[in-house]
């Protein structure tokens, strides 16, 4: 039972004009995650694209996570804070793969002649040259944990080699793949284990300690494997081949966990990244979750939540994508395309300290844990904040809250409508720019039977121009066409004299005319299509 009080209270309030409700689909609502990912604002960071495609992007594991991108016979190092190229290092042949050592001090680059060069990142001087592959080397990888001395490489000769970097010698050679080895990844938990994927559809798990010729485990992807990555647990791997990405469980003997088929063309690259907002202190790790990021020749970046088996975000870029990388802290995303562009995005951070280290290139100076925590200050009487204390206090659950009456916020046009200044309200709504609101104001004026009066009152040339510009832009929008087409006709009829004397207005009317002609053409085409389809539908309906 409701007391009649409630109704009387509503009787004494004003109602602001509201636009018509729009049908919204549940699917388009942004999840926090997609909001987070779209906040990266991915854009092309290379002012003039590189002459060739970007086959590989590699992030340094050490903060501030600079990244390297291979292009043609050289590679470039990029600052992750500013997303600008800092240095370009030329090599002798086309670079196929790059890998940072786990401390970020060294970088290994493989090229199509079959040699691997190890380069000091800071001085960019080549330190070692590893040459043993007889055919182009397609991947090179430093182990992700504990081992700074070795690296793994694979090539078109179908061999996988385990190198001792310092001695420039092959420690072990793994034979087993029957086709080009195109990808591989080292285990994030074990320095001795790594996987390689080959065009013979097979992904093999190798263990350096086994010493044997044969792989420890093999899984068949079913398509030529383009990329393979370890997931952070070290027990799962993700493989990309054809237009599918598959996740395999290594612990349970190579069982397929899930399969994602969300690209329509070949998936070219995979990486694992963390998304979510890093929280404060210890909660930072929990606030972020791991996702598989995949890019394909169809130009899509897909973010796949493998725990919920769901694509959580999808981004379309205007080129075929070849490589993808995410910095270890989840702040920077970089994508390389086939036409030499690099798209990169950075999450907005509010840390002012971040800018201090730009360009310094030093490693590991971030250490938030050491910063002294600001203690809550005891407020003293006399300060400004003392008199505002407790205003943002939240009530406890059982406390009785005395609600403040909600204040109705009125827009400029609402205030003018309340004063019955109809023309000013219409002009101010048009100037504010939201067509939905303009139409709402027009509907309110129709309800007051004042719209045409308003139109005839619009006498200043500048206001009339604004009105005509609005009509030009929105007359053919289907949502508003029913009202605005009739209005446009009346405006042109009523204001013919003013229009004929002013050049600016003539331009607007010409634009309006063009928009209407365009719409007429579209409608005619649609009618043609309808004419074609309706007999088909009729035939289909008969069956």
């Amino acid at each position, binding site marked *: *039972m*409701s*007391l*009649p*009080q*409630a*109704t*009387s*209270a*509503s*009787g*004494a*309030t*004003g*109602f602001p004009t*509201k636009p*018509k*409700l729009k049908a919204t689909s*549940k699917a388009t609502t942004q999840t926090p995650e997609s909001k987070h990912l779209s906040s990266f604002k991915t854009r092309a960071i290379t002012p003039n694209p590189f002459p060739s495609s970007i086959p590989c992007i590699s992030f340094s594991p050490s903060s501030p996570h600079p990244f390297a991108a291979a292009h043609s016979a050289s590679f470039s190092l990029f600052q992750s804070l500013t997303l600008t190229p800092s240095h370009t290092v030329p090599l002798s042949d086309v670079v196929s793969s790059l890998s940072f050592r786990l401390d970020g001090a060294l970088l290994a680059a493989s090229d199509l002649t079959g040699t691997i060069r190890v380069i000091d990142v800071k001085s960019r001087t080549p330190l070692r040259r590893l040459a043993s592959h007889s055919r182009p080397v397609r991947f090179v990888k430093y182990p992700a944990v504990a081992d700074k001395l070795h690296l793994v490489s694979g090539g078109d000769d179908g061999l996988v080699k385990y190198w001792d970097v310092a001695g420039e010698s092959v420690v072990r050679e793994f034979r087993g793949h029957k086709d080009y080895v195109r990808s591989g990844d080292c285990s994030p938990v074990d320095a001795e284990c790594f996987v390689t994927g080959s065009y013979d559809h097979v992904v093999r798990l190798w263990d350096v300690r086994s010493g044997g010729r044969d792989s420890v485990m093999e899984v068949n992807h079913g398509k030529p494997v383009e990329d393979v990555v370890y997931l952070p647990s070290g027990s799962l791997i993700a493989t990309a081949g054809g237009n599918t990405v598959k996740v395999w469980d290594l612990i349970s003997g190579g069982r397929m966990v899930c399969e994602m088929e969300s690209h329509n063309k070949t998936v070219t690259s995979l990486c694992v990244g963390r998304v979510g907002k890093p929280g404060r202190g210890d909660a930072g790790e929990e606030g972020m979750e791991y996702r598989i990021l995949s890019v394909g020749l169809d130009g899509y970046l897909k973010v796949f939540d493998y725990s919920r088996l769901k694509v959580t975000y999808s981004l379309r870029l205007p080129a075929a994508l070849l490589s993808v990388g995410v910095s270890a802290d989840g702040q920077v995303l970089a994508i390389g395309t086939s036409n030499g562009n690099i798209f990169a995005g950075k999450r907005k951070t509010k840390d002012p300290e971040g800018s201090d280290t730009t360009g310094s290139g030093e490693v590991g100076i971030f250490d938030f844990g050491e910063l002294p925590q600001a203690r809550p200050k005891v407020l003293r009487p006399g300060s400004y904040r003392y008199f505002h204390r407790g205003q943002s206090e939240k009530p406890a*659950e*059982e406390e*009785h809250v*005395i609600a403040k009456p909600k204040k109705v916020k009125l827009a400029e046009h609402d205030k003018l409508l309340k004063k019955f200044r109809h023309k000013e309200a219409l002009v101010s709504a048009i100037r504010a720019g939201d067509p939905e609101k303009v139409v709402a104001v*027009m*509907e309110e004026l*129709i*309800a*007051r*039977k*004042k*719209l*045409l009066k308003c139109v005839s009152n619009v006498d200043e040339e500048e206001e009339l121009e604004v009105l005509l510009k609005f009509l030009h832009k929105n007359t053919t929008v289907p949502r508003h066409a*029913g*009202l605005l087409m*009739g*209005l446009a006709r*009346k405006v042109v009829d009523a204001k013919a004299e003013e229009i004929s004397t002013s050049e600016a207005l003539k331009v607007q009317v010409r634009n309006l005319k063009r928009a209407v002609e365009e719409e007429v053409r579209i409608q005619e085409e649609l009618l043609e299509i309808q004419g074609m389809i309706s007999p088909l539908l009729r035939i289909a309906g008969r069956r």
Partner: protein
Amino acid sequence: MIRGGRSHVSAPPAFSNDGKKLLVCTGNDVSIFSTSTGLLVSALEGHVALVTSVVVEPAQSPGSKVLCYCWTAALDGTIRYWDFALPELMKTVDIKFPIFSMVIPSLFSQHVGSNNSRPDLFAYISIENMNEESHPKALHGQVRKCNLTKSSLAGLVMKETKRPPYMCMSPAGDFCSIINKRKLHIWKISEVDGPGIAPIKIDFHHTRDLTVCAFHHTQKIVAAGDISGRILIWRGFGSREFSKGVGKRSINDEGERPGVRGEDDADSCTTWHWHSTAVNVLSFSSDGAYLYSGGAEGVLVVWQLDTGKKKFLPRIGSPLLYFVDSPDPLLASVSCADNQIHFLKLPHMEILKSISGIKLPAALPKPYDSLYQSCAFDSNKGLLALRTENYAVQIYSLFDDREVGQIQICERNHQSGDEITVFLTKIAISWDGSLLSTVEVRLPEEDLGGLVCLKLWKSDSPSNQFKLSTVIYEPHREYQISALAFRPTKSMVCTTSDGGDFKTWVQNDCKSKEEKVPDSGWICLAVGSYKKKPMTAAAFSADGSILAVAAATVITLWDPDNNVLISVLGDSHVSIKALSFVGHSGLLSVSGGSKPQLDVWSLTEFSRLWSYSLQVEGIACSDDPSTFAVLALLPKNGDNFDEAAFQWRDGVILVFTGTSHVPTATWSVRKAERGAISFLRAKPEEHILDGRRSKFLVAFVNGDHEYVLFDPFGDGTDEHGVKRLMDSSVEEKESFGYTSIYGNLKELEPQDSKSAGTGVVPTGKDWSSIFSWPSHDPPPLTKVCSEFLESLLERRQAVTGS
């Protein structure tokens, strides 16, 4: 038989002396409402015609404030004296002329010499004397004096007017006045009153018809409003005429009397003009500093009397009719034309509470008149949904005779003066009362921007408030919706349009997704049409298996689930207005227009059983499968019946049982035009008529939204057999301290009071988990002990407000 839905605003109300009760003239009764709760407390019943005025006897001393005596006058020609605390009739004075207005000035004037023998009490009344020969110029209205103590009418006629005027009296009881077209007559009531003593009269003249007047509490100031919205204030009136007897003589000098017309007896006259239409409300504040005025704009204006500065209480939502001061200086009441009385907190001009009567019918613009539908019934709960003027739907409880809630359909304010451009046309309530569907129409301005909008509302069960679920713009392109019907068993709505199609709408229950959204919207399920004929009416059968849609002159029957045409019935000459199913195999159709007709069809034989040529206003079918009722208008030009024999009743309710064409019961009613009827399921325990329990009642709502509930097969003698529920238990309590500032605290009842009786329930951990540890490695005793004890304790739930 329950009557209700009477107007609360036929006459100005009156406050009791303590300001805690409001006496409102409601039809033949005076209803007493509590001012703090706004609920009905009791009623004074006795008059047999409309009560026109109520005067509360003022308290002469602070001690007598608790006394509750009042005088009432009614059109039945009697003045009655009541003790309204009990309530009890104490005295009846029979005047034999219908009384339109009454004031009793001597109650208010101070008796200086308090001698034991009280002088006779005189009332000034405005009556209607229809005696033809004595009044050749057809001046029916008379102002006369009446001795209430001796119950006699004084012979003297103080003034004759064409129509009985409304009497106005100064707060101190020394003047009374009437308005007669462009003149204002004021009488001075002499201290010593007698039957033969004619009071001195002065007149004020104006160039327009006056509408209302008011007296200042202490000074000699009178204010009057006219039909053009002007307020005239005469100061120092009657200084010449009324002081003649004393011997003083004021100087008649034109220069010193600014604004005063001709020979009118006042010192000065000022005019204020803010209102754009006639001023209906004028009242001086009790301290004399302010003047309240109001009119059809629905805005209460407060004028500062000395400066003429204004303050406003806008958007009351309806034309104002009366403003009544209470003895409590903080409280006043405003009566509105939409049958609402608002209590105002004066310095803030804030509406505290409202007494909401049934809303008056809202007319539609002329071309849309065929879409008229005044109300919809919820037969299970006995609720009525009414369209109102200010774009809302009022839910009114027929059994309790009071408003249950109001739903604002369009977010618009009432604006008087403007033409109506937005209005509701159709309402429908689903059979379980949880869904409401409304249609609103916005008129185009020169073919620009017209809109039909279908809205679907859903009630959340605990608070019975409807919430907007779905808005559908232009459901049938630009065509109007001609009918709206809910399916009884499922949540499905059918809308028919003049554009030749009907649509069925269902709730979109999102089967594809795993999580079901409880408050999902509505989508169109099917569209149907029959030979492009305009669809005019729709009805679902009681089990929901058949949908009948009237396509102009024929009835089409559809399967609503599969949208398949089952059959086509009949062919009449005029278009069908309404459809209803009777029982399992009958169908009722009503045609309007020049040849009104009522047809009953058999669905088993697909043929017409019988038909009457009747102009039918409403049809209703009961759940009891074979009974239906028809509200028909009597033919106006019929020569074969005498209108007086029907006592100006213009309609009949015919109750039919089974397929017989002979009505089993017939009732004649007044104001049947634009009325509506429905069957209501009687509440089992409260509404026992004549000792036997009737299964259902017929509710008839007439054209003025007065209603009556009755047993169609009873004898109608049980007029007062069922009393309204008096909320006498809801007696107001004075609030002190914290409560008066912040309102009542929430009741913080421990939730576990029930379980206290059954003993302690261990709500903590399961014992099996407490004691499960490896036998070789028991945890420390302190830990186990605390866990064990904790498991014995009840977990106290967090208290959440309801």
